[in-house]
């Protein structure tokens, strides 16, 4: 088993406040990896450092999406790259896709069009070819439409494909976002609090969906989540952090037994 993501010694501070302090963890291939921590622990910051929205002060973010992916993204002859310093919009080219905590969809476009945006980086037609609607651009468009429909079918919302995304209920929007990540042929999907705002049965569905995505697309999933039930249910490995520092890592069972994790969540401290 190889590692798709290796975060090493990540640190970042905002105005003197250390948001992340020397954090390291590793996500393996085909693994569902949970990142947990109490409020303000820096989960989202980790996330933003991995996806390059923030540039970490120190540390590396090794990403190994497979040689063919790297060749396609223009990095032949290497099996992993350091994401730090890459422009945000390039990250997805390596097969690293994310969803957003507060679901970012485009209300004025149809569900299908929203999904199609996920395939943006793989569109080969030039701007000019698209402006003039050359046959090649049209063929490519048709091909991606079919792919987008498949992604919607996978998440059982294909029947909504031609409706406007803006009017859809929250659950559908969340699925829509997931379908969008599938368009980029992901190697690693980062889900930012996917269970937020879902009820119990929806959360169970979600767990099932996450597993199906992993099994069908052979990718890894990095789950940043509050809902302990979901995390313990689906994750193979979990990393717990608190105040930007590494706390513990292991399987769900190990984490549940870990004293440090309990302390961090309950705020108890025997001694300093």
């Amino acid at each position, binding site marked *: 088993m190889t590692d798709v993501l290796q975060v090493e010694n990540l640190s970042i501070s*905002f105005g003197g406040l250390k948001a992340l302090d020397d954090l390291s963890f590793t996500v393996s291939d085909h693994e569902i990896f949970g990142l947990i921590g109490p409020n303000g622990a820096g989960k*989202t910051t980790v996330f*933003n450092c991995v996806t390059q*929205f*923030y540039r970490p002060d120190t540390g590396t973010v090794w990403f190994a999406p497979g040689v063919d992916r790297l060749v396609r993204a223009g990095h032949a002859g290497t099996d992993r790259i350091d994401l730090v310093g890459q422009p945000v919009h390039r990250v997805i080219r390596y097969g690293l896709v994310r969803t957003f905590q507060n679901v970012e969809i485009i209300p004025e476009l149809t569900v299908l069009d929203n999904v199609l945006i996920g395939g943006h980086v793989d569109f080969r037609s030039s701007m000019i070819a698209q402006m003039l609607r050359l046959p090649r651009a049209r063929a490519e468009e048709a091909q991606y439409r079919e792919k987008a429909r498949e992604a919607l079918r996978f998440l059982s919302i294909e029947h909504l494909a031609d409706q406007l995304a803006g009017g859809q209920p929250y659950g559908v929007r969340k699925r829509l976002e997931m379908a969008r990540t599938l368009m980029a042929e992901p190697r690693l999907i980062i889900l930012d609090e996917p269970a937020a705002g879902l009820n119990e049965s929806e959360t169970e569905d979600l767990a099932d969906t996450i597993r199906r995505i992993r099994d069908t697309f052979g990718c890894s999933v990095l789950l940043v989540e509050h809902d302990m039930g979901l995390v313990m249910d689906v994750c193979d490995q979990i990393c717990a952090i608190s105040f930007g520092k590494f706390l513990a890592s292991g399987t769900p069972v190990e984490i549940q037994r870990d004293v440090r994790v309990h302390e961090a969540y309950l705020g108890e401290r025997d001694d300093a």
Partner: protein
Amino acid sequence: MYALAALGIILVWRTSLVMHFAQGSMGMFSGTAVAFVLNRTGAPLWASVLVGAAVAIALGFAVDFAVIRRLRRATAVGKEIVTLGLIMVFLGLAPILFGTEPMLLPKAIPDGALTIGDAYLSYNGLLNICLGVAIAAGLFVMLQKTKIGLAIRATASNEQTARLMGIPTRRVTVLAWAAAGVLGMLAAVMIAPATTVTPTFMNTVQVTALFACVLGGFQTFYGPVLGAYLIAVAGNFLQLYVSSVWGEQLLYLLILLFLLVRPNGLVGKTYLKKV
């Protein structure tokens, strides 16, 4: 004088986050009012300026009450477009109210000049510079030392928090608009003697003031003032020694190039976007 217009823009930007494109034309409007009072009634300059100040304050109030305040829900872009609309309204209103004939405004000090090396500086120019510095300094003192200044700065740094802390942010915003109006008017009165008072005579001022903000950076109050004086000096220098026709254009291009090197301006800081 550019400094004053720039200060007006930055004041509005910091308090209501609107890029005030109408600063020049509002200044033009009240400046024209000054010229109108002066030319028609024969009132002395200081009295006309007082009238102009009243007009400027009234305009600032009117704009904030009637338009800006109701745009809370609109985008920043929407608000900016509205200030563009305001330009047109003022450009259209001025000739209707004050007539279409170009008017002249006298200098406060009619003649006399200071010679420093090759450069001449009229006493009036000197007065303008001193006035500009004095007003800018006065504003800084007000911003730093008084309660109102504190309120403005608090609103500038975070409106929501300021409101929660009991600062009447609405009043602060109105005040900023009115103050910007007066600053614009003063800038207009200072510029006017060098040209004739027509609806477009403040265009250059608008452009220069915006550029002063760009050059100085939008984060501080003193940056734009610094930028304005720098632009004025550099502009004169270029016109004197390089080309009287192309000097100004050259300066603008230089500032654009400057943006490549220091995108956030002279005293600007980068800021982190929250995701």
